[in-house]
């Protein structure tokens, strides 16, 4: 499809994204595997953009991974989510921003269910009151954290010090953007650009100087599949679906992969390592992998944050080739040090994937 057509379609899917005073709910997977991304999000919002972002230590998982692996019933998940709304209401906020895509999809599913089935909302209010004595208001605005960064992409660009271009040649860097399935596949109108041509990451890449790759399996799932990863016997499902994507994107020689879901970057990063160990294959240049970034990490790099403050040292696929292309300085000797410079040793080298 020609670009004009794509632009016309995504214009039908422009959502309202609150511009300040957010109640932030964290992601289980993000906190475990790329915790510094959440740190970067708050730093960007609070220190750079001077926005109010509230957090409450009392919030918990939305139970989404349990729900989508079917050990947690829908009524339970709806009531856990109602409790998050109660914490938001209690803090005087009405704009919810989620770090997790599974949560974002579930919040939308629950809100749509309540809209179409008011009796279910009444039932959940009763459950929450009985269990905790709590009451809640429905959020005025629900956004994913990538929506918020998308909304402020121009402001970030304006104060940024790095661009998505090769610092020696000026070539725009080629980016695979991967959208988490639950961002907009269930409710296209809830995502910037809908489900076929989601614009949330494309908008960031274009604004920051890069070029998006359109490849055959662009919309294919990373392969998480909840129970398909959680149970060892099923993990071939997860690995095979990621492999399908790598094989499809490789001929386009992406400089990196950009993701907006907490799970996807972990799988796209770890499965490259696993495939290199199992089959001896690598998908990047010179025996390396294709670096995988979160949108918070990318925004942080644009703003000139230290790569190790952004947590790039905990990627299994090294990100240094991308930093070199962008002309970003980094101190290799500090990569695996602790907060106060303590020596923590360093990870073993993989047997195939070039790491050091």
């Amino acid at each position, binding site marked *: 499809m020609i670009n004009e057509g794509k632009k016309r379609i995504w214009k039908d899917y422009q959502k309202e994204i609150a511009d300040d005073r957010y109640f932030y709910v964290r992601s289980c997977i993000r906190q*475990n595997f790329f*915790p510094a991304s959440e*740190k970067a999000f708050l730093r960007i919002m609070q220190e750079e953009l001077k926005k109010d972002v509230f957090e409450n*230590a*009392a919030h*918990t*998982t939305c139970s*989404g*991974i*349990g729900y989508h692996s*079917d*050990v*947690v019933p829908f*009524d*339970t998940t709806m*009531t*856990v989510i109602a409790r998050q709304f109660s914490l938001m209401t209690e803090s005087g906020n009405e704009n919810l921003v989620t770090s997790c895509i599974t949560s974002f999809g579930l919040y939308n599913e629950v809100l749509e*269910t309540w809209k*179409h089935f008011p009796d279910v909302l009444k039932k959940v209010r009763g*459950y929450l009151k009985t*269990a*905790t004595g709590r009451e809640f208001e429905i959020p005025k605005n629900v956004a994913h954290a990538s929506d918020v960064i998308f909304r402020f992409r121009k402001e970030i660009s304006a104060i940024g010090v790095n661009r998505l271009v090769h610092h020696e040649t000026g070539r725009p860097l080629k980016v695979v953007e991967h959208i988490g*399935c*639950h961002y*907009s*596949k*269930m409710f296209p109108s809830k995502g910037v650009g809908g489900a076929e041509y989601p614009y949330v990451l494309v908008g960031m890449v274009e604004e920051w100087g890069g070029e998006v790759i359109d490849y055959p399996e662009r*919309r*294919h*799932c990373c*392969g*998480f*599949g*909840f*129970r*398909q990863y959680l*149970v*060892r*016997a*099923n*993990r*071939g*499902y997860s*690995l095979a679906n990621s492999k*399908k994507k790598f094989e499809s994107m490789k001929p386009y020689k992406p400089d990196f992969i950009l993701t907006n879901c907490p799970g996807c970057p972990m799988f796209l990063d*770890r499965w490259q*390592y*696993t495939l290199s160990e199992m089959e001896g294959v690598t998908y990047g240049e010179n025996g390396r992998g294709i670096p995988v970034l979160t949108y918070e990490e990318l925004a942080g790099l644009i703003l000139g944050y230290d790569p190790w403050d952004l*947590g790039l040292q*905990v*990627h*299994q696929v090294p990100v240094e080739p991308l930093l070199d292309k962008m002309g970003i300085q980094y101190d290799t000797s500090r990569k695996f*040090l*602790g907060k106060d410079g*303590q020596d*923590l*040793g360093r*990870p073993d*080298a*993989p047997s195939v994937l070039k790491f050091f």
Partner: protein
Amino acid sequence: MDRLYDMLSADVRFKEGLKACLHCGTCTAICPAAEFYNYQPRKIVEILQTKNEEEIEALLKGDMIWYCGECMSCVTRCPRGNAPGLLITVLRGLSQDLGYFTESEKGRQQLAIKRTVGEWILEYGYCMFPSEVRPEAHPEQGPVWKWEVEHIEEVMERLGANYAKTGPGILRKVPDEDLQELKKIFDVTGGTRRFEKIEACSRQKAEEMGMELTDSLDSEYVHHIYTTNDPKHTAAE
């Protein structure tokens, strides 16, 4: 006994997910599970549309409903507004409520998920916690994760987490009073009942299969369901 179809229909997700399928197969063409398993989401919808009790019972007792990854890619593409992935969530719920899940290899895996993610939700307030993602059980996580786990407090501090400590922040300790609220929600809404049902049915099945099942994850039965993978699931038909 109530008809299975009526029990499924009582769930609002079933009403939302099943309109009128025209068997175009688009859901199957786009499905990551169909890429990997001998699986067609189209077939699920076809069976449900027949309202045939025997076939629905076979679905609830079989492996097929457990192949889906709930990515919901099918929802976007269905030209008639069906949601096979959503129907799967209802089928899996009923399969567990009726104790049918232990009749299939893939269904039996629910005990392993309940004893990990399910229990972590109530113990930590998170669906997972670094100390539980053990490198020896997750070789795919690679040497960097192994290094992280070996130095978890220092690494998490370097990355800006408030690891296992009080107050807000990344991987903070969720306060006990909030974990208690979570537990009460599970008690009131059927979450605890489902956990108990999974345990009770699994114990019965373990006995039938002559396998040891204690409260430990190291039990023979848990190990069996966590690792067994019959080639029939993916073999060419």
